[in-house]
């Protein structure tokens, strides 16, 4: 195949855009001026391709090239305007397809990490041009840049995820003014690339074809059998059953369309294609019954390559009787009229699968006795268990795993251990056990557990099990239980923590957007990129605004609680006026208010403060450096 070429204008000069013979570069040669104005772009440097959508009468191809020495975020752009009139679209498509294939090949060969997304890549895209992503859709989700730039994909993701949409809108509204929408979008999506990728993959999946004939169910209306059939269904029937297409071709001019279908659905042929058994009572049809004996596969080219392991033809050669065995009856080819339903289902599945592009394996690969075939023929069941292929994790030094902060006390203990004389401690232990725990289980447990209280009081208090020690230990246990109960009590107030649900939702949203801005702040702050300094300061502004928003929510919550408090007080007054008794007011039982908000948002507030403090410290340091220079 000759490399594709097409006449295209670059910077309003006419010329020819040609793919090189080895498909490693693409060059544009101006029609006038000879080779001097030639532009040659290496495929390996091309980062992106964009083409005007098919609906657009203008045919343009935009090539993004990243020269190896250029910084990451400044790809050069070449726009070629195809000028071949009616032929322009075809030429452009040919070049684009060839290019994307070459790019794909170059990418897989490189296997290099994709370049980090450039800040504000979304801006670079001119919305007026509305370029459609041109490189084959297969790789779209592998490229972070495309994912970040594809506004349509993002919109569709937002539509499918209302939570994300809510947060997106809220963050968009509260973003600092200095941050453009484009910057904001690119930042917002840069941390959600995985969502975009999943969504892109999800969208690219399509429903496959299905068994049409089995879904056609006639219904009876006014004693007339009726069946609705759509154009798509006819299309599918033709695809799946080439025989029907043949019958249709040969007969329709003679029969009317409606007549043909009504006869077909009542015919034996229909039953046969559905895999049902024919019976004598079935209506005969002079025209269609001719085709009953026809090859149901029609002219469908059979996949020639059958794995040897499954190929029944191999059994034909196997003459079992020669060795004195019984005739081999299993796994033999049999006449088509046996078990028609299985045959029909098999052939149908075959046809449906034939229309699906195989994701694995190359259909053009040579067929023959290669290594794969050899492997195929091996009887895997006869092999032993395969050895587990594990990745070994080598742990070098485990000593640090256990040492807690209390390193000193551990060292102290080790020192004490080292001082001990092993023989002495062993003999002490043995003697003690000998003395207190006789070998035959006659240990006086009662005496061991409960010390003699009669002796010196001071001494007996030092004994295990003395009254004092028991008191101390039970005090510890009860204290632990008290702590524990206090903790479980707090967590039992679930739900909205006494806030009204509207306020709680607002709090939730505030939290989400604050987290989003914190995220963006840290990304910019830690990027170490001086170009983003302006953006950073605007993000800091938005952080302080986030703090204000939290405070606003807290104030509203307090106001809400105050209303409740007032109501209770008023009620108490009324009760007092009516009965003359002062009821006990328990205002602390009213939950909610500022306290709860601050409690819930505590970590967030702390995070905001930390971020701001870090920023201030870094700012002060840089200022000092700047003035020192």
């Amino acid at each position, binding site marked *: 195949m000759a490399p594709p070429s097409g006449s295209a204008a670059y910077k309003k000069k006419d010329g020819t855009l040609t793919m090189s013979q080895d498909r490693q570069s693409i060059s544009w040669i101006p029609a006038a001026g000879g080779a001097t104005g030639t532009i040659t772009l290496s495929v390996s440097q091309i980062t992106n391709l964009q083409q005007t959508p098919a609906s657009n009468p203008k045919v343009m191809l935009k090539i993004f090239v990243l020269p190896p020495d250029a910084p990451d975020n400044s790809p050069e752009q070449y726009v070629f305007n195809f000028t071949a009139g009616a032929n322009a679209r075809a030429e452009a498509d040919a070049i684009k397809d060839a290019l994307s294939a070459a790019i794909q090949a170059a990418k897989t060969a490189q296997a290099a990490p994709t370049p980090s997304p450039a800040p504000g890549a979304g801006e670079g895209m001119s919305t007026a041009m509305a370029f459609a992503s041109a490189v084959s859709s297969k790789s779209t989700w592998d490229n972070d840049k495309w994912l970040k730039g594809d506004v349509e994909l993002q919109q569709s993701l937002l539509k499918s995820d209302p939570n994300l949409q809510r947060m997106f809108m809220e963050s968009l509204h509260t973003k600092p003014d200095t941050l453009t929408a484009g910057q904001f979008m690119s930042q917002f999506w840069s941390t959600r690339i995985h969502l975009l990728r999943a969504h892109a993959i999800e969208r690219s999946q399509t429903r496959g074809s299905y068994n049409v004939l089995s879904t056609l169910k006639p219904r009876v209306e006014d004693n007339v059998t009726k069946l609705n059939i759509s154009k798509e269904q006819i299309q599918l029937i033709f695809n799946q059953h080439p025989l029907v297409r043949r019958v249709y071709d040969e007969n329709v001019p003679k029969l009317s369309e409606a007549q043909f279908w009504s006869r077909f659905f009542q015919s034996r042929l229909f039953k046969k294609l559905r895999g049902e058994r024919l019976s004598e009572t079935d209506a005969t049809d002079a025209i269609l019954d001719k085709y009953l004996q026809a090859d149901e596969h029609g002219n469908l080219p059979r996949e020639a390559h059958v794995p040897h392991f499954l190929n029944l033809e191999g059994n034909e050669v196997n003459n079992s009787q020669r060795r004195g065995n019984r005739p081999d009856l299993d796994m033999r080819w049999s006449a088509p009229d046996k078990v028609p339903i299985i045959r029909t289902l098999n052939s149908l599945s075959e046809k449906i699968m034939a229309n699906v592009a195989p994701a694995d394996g190359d259909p053009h690969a040579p067929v023959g006795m290669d290594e794969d075939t050899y492997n195929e023929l091996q009887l895997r069941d006869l092999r032993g268990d395969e050895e587990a292929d594990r990745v070994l994790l080598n742990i070098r030094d485990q000593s640090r795993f256990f*040492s807690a*902060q209390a390193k000193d006390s551990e060292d102290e203990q080790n020192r004490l251990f080292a001082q001990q004389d092993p023989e002495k401690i062993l003999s002490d232990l043995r003697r003690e056990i000998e003395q207190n725990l006789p070998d035959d289980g006659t240990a006086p*447990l009662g005496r061991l557990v409960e010390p003699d209280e009669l002796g010196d009081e001071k001494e007996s208090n030092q004994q295990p099990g003395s009254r004092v020690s028991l008191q101390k230990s039970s005090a510890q246990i009860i204290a632990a239980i008290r702590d524990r109960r206090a903790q479980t009590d707090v967590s039992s107030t679930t739900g909205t923590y006494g806030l009204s649900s509207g306020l709680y939702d607002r709090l939730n949203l505030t939290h989400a957007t604050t987290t989003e801005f914190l995220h963006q702040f840290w990304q910019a702050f830690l990027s170490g990129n*001086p170009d983003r300094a302006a953006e950073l300061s605007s993000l800091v502004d938005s952080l302080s605004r986030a703090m204000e928003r939290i405070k606003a929510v807290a104030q509203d919550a307090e106001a809400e609680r105050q209303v409740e408090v007032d109501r209770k007080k008023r009620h108490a007054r009324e009760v007092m006026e009516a009965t003359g008794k002062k009821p006990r007011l328990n205002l602390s039982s009213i939950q909610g208010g500022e306290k709860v908000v601050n409690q819930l948002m505590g970590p967030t507030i702390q995070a905001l403060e930390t971020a701001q403090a870090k920023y201030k410290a870094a700012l002060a340091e840089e200022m000092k450096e700047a003035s020192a220079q």
Partner: protein
Amino acid sequence: MNAVDATEHYETSARDPAPALLTVVLDTNPHAWALLEDSLPLSKAIANILVFLNAHLACNYANEVAVVASHSQKAAWLYPHENPATKISHDADGDVSMNGSSTNNNTTEGPGQVNKYRPFRIVEEQVTHNLRELMASTSGPDVKANNSTMMAGALTLALSHINRRSIAWAEAHGADTAAETSGGGPPSGGHASGTDTTEGLQSRILIVSVSGASDSAHQYIPIMNSIFACQRLHIPIDVCKLSGDAVFLQQASDATKGIYMSLTEPRGLLQYLMMAFLPDQRSRRHLVLPTRVDVDFRAACFCHRRVVDIGFVCSICLSIFCEPLDNGTCLTCGTNLEIGDYGAKPAVVARKRKKKKRVNGPSGTATPTPTPTPGP
């Protein structure tokens, strides 16, 4: 006449709450016990534990106990220990041979001993006997060589015993539990379904620990594996810490919903055992447990033991580091890791000059990251 049908007896017994198996892992590290000698000698601690075991046995006639010693050079069974050399031999049906040995005859000295409840007595005899043997078999060099205790081995012994007993119990109690056994692991410990009739043997582990943790570092992975096995089988690990402190034991009891107590007053051991550790899983559901509330979950880096807010985690072995590693090699597993342009010195002032001194590695433009740091 159906009322006198004898099967009724079995029907009701099948509805009885399942018995509990209490496995005590006793840390017998001689070093640590020698330090404790003044406050709580080993023999008294054993006596306390025996009383506790008796209490457990008394709760239900079918309750079982097991005792494993986690010694300095090995883990050993204290009870049940099938030792043919033991003077008091038990037949398969649990009979004691009548022609008792000389030691057996000595029981006459204490008139109360002959009337001791049999299960108590068997446990006491075996535990004390095996402990003496264990101590006798320990040599000075053994103790000298090892400051720590064989906790991993002891936990593994305990778990395998629990497994065996659970299967045996399930088999003995027939169809009710058959479905549960076939489903996966043996029915042990707590249960997920919440139906009391189908639960298996209730197992739990009590670790009486005296050793510190740092010396058993080389057992880290086996211990963690045992802990995860317990978590999976719903076996709570209770920890009774007499001295020292071990982070991993705290985490063990927390992960398995057991009770962790670090005793401030080791002399009151029995009080602790009886108050805190006696209830079985079934009762614990209705109780406020005295476990500590402040388990330390903060991540500390592996390189300097600092508690970190922002750390770097090895994607292979999950070690935590407080700062980017030199040339990206994980200190623990040696994997070569790539670090993105994270951690560069923050630039807060826009500069005209392109050239900028960086603290960390080459400039951000030259180190592309495939994906930005994922958000929290």
